């Protein structure tokens, strides 16, 4: 039975020409699940529309 995220992994793997062998899939899926969970945690935080990104920190 396909796991949640498997269709997404297949689609992005194809789009990026990034190989994901079957043996790696459970670990990739588990890591992606953590990254998306933490990403959602950031996403849930309301920020003003004017907020600038800070890719490079300057004091």
């Amino acid at each position, binding site marked *: 039975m396909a796991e949640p995220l498997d269709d997404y992994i297949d689609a992005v793997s194809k789009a*990026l020409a990034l*190989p994901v062998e079957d043996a*790696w899939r459970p*670990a990739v899926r588990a890591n992606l699940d953590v990254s998306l969970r933490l990403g959602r945690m950031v996403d849930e935080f309301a920020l003003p529309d004017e907020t*600038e990104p800070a890719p490079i920190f300057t004091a």
Partner: protein
Amino acid sequence: MTTKSEMTASEIAGAVTSRKMSALDATEAALARIKQHDGILNSFTDVTADRARAKARAIDADIAAGKTVGSLAGVPFAVKNLFDVTGLPTRAGSKINRDLAPAKRDATLIERMEAAGAVLVGALNMGEYAYDFTGENVHDGPSRNPHDTTRMSGGSSGGSGTAVGGALVPIALGSDTNGSIRVPSSFCGIFGLKPTYGRLSRARSFPFVASLDHLGPFARSVTDLALAYDAMQGSDPDDGACTTRGLEPTLPLIANPVSDLRIAIAGGHFQKNVFPEAVEAVSRVAKALGATKVVDVPEASRARAAAYVITTTEGASLHLDRLRKRPNDFDPAVRDRLIAGAMVPAALVDRAQKFRRWYRAQLAEIFKSVDVLLAPATPCTAPKLGQVNFNLDGVELPVRANIGIHTQPISFIGLPVVAVPVPLEPLPIGVQIIAAPWREDIALRVAYALEKMGVVAAPAPRAF
């Protein structure tokens, strides 16, 4: 005269400059210690003995000729193997990078250390591509903890922690993206400085996460840490993120009193997810400094989440082509994290970068009313090599991802930190002394005061 392993860098430089010891003797002693102990510790991946002897002889010749030598004359040091070292491929802990051509020029920080008279003796083991908190490496074997060789050194600058903690060299250099200087400092019981983002040049070092990468020194005393840091300061057009601020030497300032400083304990996230030893370490440091005020750092858990997202995506971007062409040559654990990182939607990364701006403003506000924040460097003392999970606050969690739970929210916005070692038994553990941007001098001053009080110290290696 032979050197003892407990000689600090400043003692070696003093003895060499005053001709009580030659730079060559200091170098030979370090090479002998590496030969004697590194078979067990596994901290070095390359020993540059010929180069080191040539450099040491040149320093001795300069001294004999009456020329002025630098503040680190004859001091042996080593660097994490993501620094370019002339003549070596910059492996960055990987198998893949061993196929690179040998570097044609040293990293800027090596050049600056050597300009001050220090002697490079080798390159050090590290977690693959710096995506690591353990110090384990599937290609080179683990850097081992110098106090218990069955335990982790911490990573990703594991060899740097082991080499200094094992007293093979008095100074090492490493990198810190999410905690990779502070974690090995904690586990190996030594001092480590992660400067303000942009303070020290990263030119000719192998990157990991451009917007989070910092380089910095490890040492067995605060004086040595400041000596090395001061020698490496200065702008560098070869690193686009490197500051153009003038030199701000710290060594003349570290002995200033700390009684006028407003020191607080970081609350919230930093008081959760800790083992009793981390609580004890922070408590000892706070008590010695008379710090009782607890300051909540808002949204630090979310800051850690944002740092995680930025790290995995920027790291994936860096390695995308290698993941396509040589996936089987990666450490599988690193590869699978990077592949997952490549799949995180861009909108979430942008949200993380915007959150970073908000979070930076919150910390700037805090630093209007305090000068220093105290926080654990790691949630625990060094875990066993290969340990997969630990129990944090009643929850079973993976070790690898959570060792840096208290370091990530700080490097996320580039604040300067000195990790200080509290010599608990049976294993040491570190505390972060966190200051406002560009105030490394304050963090070093507090670390020095704690060292003089005997609250923090680098214990002699206990494994041999």
